[in-house]
């Protein structure tokens, strides 16, 4: 290497060192700048990092809050679901969802086993319909269709086959709704098991609507059935025959054989009636011994009449539980709907009227009476009397007539019988007929009260006049049954300040049909007050000397029917003599009613009859006429001149 080349290289190296220094300085400046940049970047990174931490912390907190909220919501939801499931479980209920598009039924709830359905997701609706009771299926489908078409809520009871294969009652409720993300149309609801409740209701209904003894429908049930029957009949234009059956004198069966046997007879009789189910649409027990039979519309009235006759024949001999045989006497009344009555009340009135006609012949045995024009006329006549009576009671338009009674011993008038009169009465009617209607309709209670009031007013007048003659008033058995007669009389006695011994209460033998012990007690109350009691029309009804003996009576009035034949040498005379003798032996006085002839008077006097009453002495007269009778007011022996112009 030459000196010059060495110098060149040295020069290069010196320059290189200089360049390297410059380069290093450049690098240091660059490094410094980069360091500063890096520091700045680092600072920004730190800030960003801190910001990020804050954001992360905030986001984390928000996330925790959301998570907590979701957890709480989930818990609440779960609690609600648990509660709902518990309630469903307690109520023996399930929820159901009918998917309209897929025609599937989704049933949820622990009790779904009640329906005999496995806990699967959804089952075809047709499969479930197979489990619905045939009688309920149509109604359920109609309800479902109404819900789908008109949005009507479902509320229906139906029977569904349970797991064990038997049908049980369920209450199904549901409403139109939507479900799922696509808001699919559905009907959603509940199905609550209420078998026991329905069964109880049915049992309650059965007990409320059926006679416990015979198991037949009772009056209440019959009336509601009749409403349906009547509307169907009117709609179809096909009438039907109704028959009211009354067992004659059933109380005697109870009295004779006891209630147990009596109940057995009623049960057997109900079975006999059931035996006619081929011809009847309804049979019901209306009261103790009254039954109603509704024949099918295709059973003609004459045919129904024949069937009733057959029923009567089949009851002619019935075997009792004690082995004895008994002939059951029936009174049957038939009427046709709507011809004889277009409503329940009218039809029942008709059959009752027919029965009443039959009852008049009950002494000859069973009878079957078809309602007819004559009965109808009679019924309307009674109705007219009833309406006029009501008006007369309101207006107090009754009056009394008095028929004096003569004492056979003193030959003086000793008292009189007050007889009911109605001055404004329609002349077509007679007074006995009016009294009968009043008795049958219960109006006798009001009439009787007014009679007592009027009689007391006259008694008071007699007392004021110083005339000591007794007045007899007739008191109906119905009054004894439904009114406190002793209290009624007691008040009147006080009010009018009348001597109680001047009042005679006449009762008919029909009173014996009542509870004799109670009647004896009531009559005793009267006699204790000083009032005297007489048995009226003795011999016309349930004459029983045993009963007479039990009652605290003063007089016995022999029925006019016996008196009519006295003196003519018939057997009536013997009977009258026997009654007089027996009455005297028991300490009772005897009054002969309806004495019209001298022969009758003579005979009765010779038989020792105590008192005589009748046209022979005086017809019933007004009070004013009564007191004008010299013999009555003065109390002197009769001049023996009767209104017939006869002298005793």
């Amino acid at each position, binding site marked *: 290497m030459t000196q010059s*080349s060495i110098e*060149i*290289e040295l*020069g*290069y*190296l010196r*320059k290189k060192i*200089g*360049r*390297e*220094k*410059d*380069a*290093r300085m*450049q*690098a240091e400046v*660059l*490094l410094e700048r980069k360091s500063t940049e890096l520091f700045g970047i680092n600072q920004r990174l730190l800030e960003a990092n801190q910001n990020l931490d804050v954001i992360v912390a905030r986001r984390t907190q928000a996330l925790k809050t959301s998570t907590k909220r979701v957890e709480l919501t989930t818990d609440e939801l779960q609690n609600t679901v648990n509660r709902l499931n518990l309630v469903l479980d307690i109520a023996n209920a399930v929820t159901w969802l009918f998917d309209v598009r897929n025609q599937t039924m989704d049933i949820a709830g622990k009790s779904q086993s009640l329906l005999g359905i496995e806990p699967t997701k959804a089952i075809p609706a047709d499969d479930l319909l197979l489990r619905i009771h045939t009688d309920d299926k149509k109604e359920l489908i109609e309800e479902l269709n109404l819900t789908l078409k008109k949005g009507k809520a479902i509320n229906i009871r139906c029977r569904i086959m349970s797991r064990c294969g038997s049908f049980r009652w369920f209450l199904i409720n549901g409403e139109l709704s939507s479900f799922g993300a696509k808001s699919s149309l559905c009907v959603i609801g509940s199905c609550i098991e209420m078998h026991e409740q329905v069964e109880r209701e049915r049992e309650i209904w059965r007990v409320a609507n059926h006679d416990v003894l015979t198991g037949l429908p009772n009056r209440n049930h019959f009336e509601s059935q009749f409403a349906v029957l009547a509307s169907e009949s009117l709609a179809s234009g096909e009438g039907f025959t109704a028959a009211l059956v009354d067992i004659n004198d059933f109380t005697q069966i109870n009295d004779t054989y006891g209630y147990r046997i009596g109940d057995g007879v009623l049960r057997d009789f109900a079975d006999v009636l059931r035996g006619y189910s081929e011809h009847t649409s309804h049979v019901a027990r209306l009261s103790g011994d009254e039954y109603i039979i509704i024949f099918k519309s295709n059973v003609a009235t004459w045919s129904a009449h024949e069937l009733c006759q057959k029923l009567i024949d089949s009851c002619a001999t019935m075997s009792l539980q004690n082995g004895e045989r008994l002939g059951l006497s029936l009174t049957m009344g038939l009427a046709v709907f709507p011809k004889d009555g277009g409503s329940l009340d009218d039809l029942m009135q008709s059959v009752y009227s027919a029965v009443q006609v039959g009852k008049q012949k009950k002494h000859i045995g069973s009878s079957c009476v078809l309602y007819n024009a004559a009965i109808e006329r009679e019924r309307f006549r009674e109705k007219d009397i009833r309406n006029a009576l009501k008006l007369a009671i309101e207006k107090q338009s009754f009056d009394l007539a008095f028929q004096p009674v003569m004492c056979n011993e003193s030959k003086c008038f000793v008292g009189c019988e007050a007889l009911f009169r109605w001055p404004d009465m329609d002349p077509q009617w007679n007074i006995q007929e009016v009294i009968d209607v009043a008795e049958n309709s219960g109006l006798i209670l009001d009439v009787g009260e007014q009679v007592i009031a009027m009689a007391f007013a006259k008694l008071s007048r007699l007392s004021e006049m110083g005339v000591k003659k007794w007045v007899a008033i007739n008191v109906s058995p119905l009054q004894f049954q439904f009114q406190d007669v002793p209290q009624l009389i007691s008040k009147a006695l006080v009010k009018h300040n009348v001597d109680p011994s001047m009042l005679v209460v006449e009762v008919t033998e029909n009173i014996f049909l009542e509870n004799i012990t109670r009647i004896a007690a009531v009559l005793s109350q009267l006699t204790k007050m000083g009032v005297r009691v007489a048995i009226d029309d003795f011999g016309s009804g349930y004459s029983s000397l045993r009963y007479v003996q039990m009652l605290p009576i003063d007089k016995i009035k022999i029925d006019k029917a016996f008196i009519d034949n006295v003196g003519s040498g018939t057997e009536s005379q013997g009977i009258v003599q026997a009654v007089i003798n027996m009455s005297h032996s028991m300490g009772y006085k005897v009054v002969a009613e309806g004495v019209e002839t001298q022969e009758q008077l003579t005979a009765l006097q010779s038989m020792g009859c105590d008192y005589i009453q009748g046209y022979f002495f005086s017809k019933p007269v007004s009070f004013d006429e009564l007191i004008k009778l010299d013999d009555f007011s003065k109390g002197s022996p009769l001049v023996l001149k009767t209104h017939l112009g006869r002298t005793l």
Partner: protein
Amino acid sequence: MKGIIFTEFIELVETTYGFSIAAALLDGCDLPSGGAYTAVGTYDHQEVLTLVGQLQKLTGTPASDLLEAYGLFLFPKLAAQMESMSLKFDGAIDLLCSLETIIHKEVLKLYPDAELPSFNIQNINSKEIVMEYRSCRPFAHLAKGLIDGCGEYYQQTLSVSMKHLNTKTEFHTLISVRQS
């Protein structure tokens, strides 16, 4: 252009031609930087062209050859940096195929202001590719030298041929690489 290109070029000149040529080279060029380069700095690419042109005058070696020789010399230095970045490839073709998709992306992360050429790669088969070089700078031969250096680095024999399609606005060269 990154400083390493300059520092390594000076290093190549010093190693290959000696200090006297290196002194003549630097003295003969009126470089804005004065030839004081640091690897981490950034310098105008015109200085490389000036240096290569001056070296061509001093040595009589064509600029294209000088650039290819420089690429061959430079590749191991770049490979060392690549390894420090944990970039690994199965071989030369694999690396060349990943030039645009992986290596340039990583370079841009380090030097966001770097101005890199684009290489559109056409795969002929597993051992042959065509690289479409596009740049505003005339460094297609430097690219060829680097490809050669890549083959040496992986000890694979590569046949590299070039077809220039330069326009007035762009340097465009198709570089075919086949591994034999």
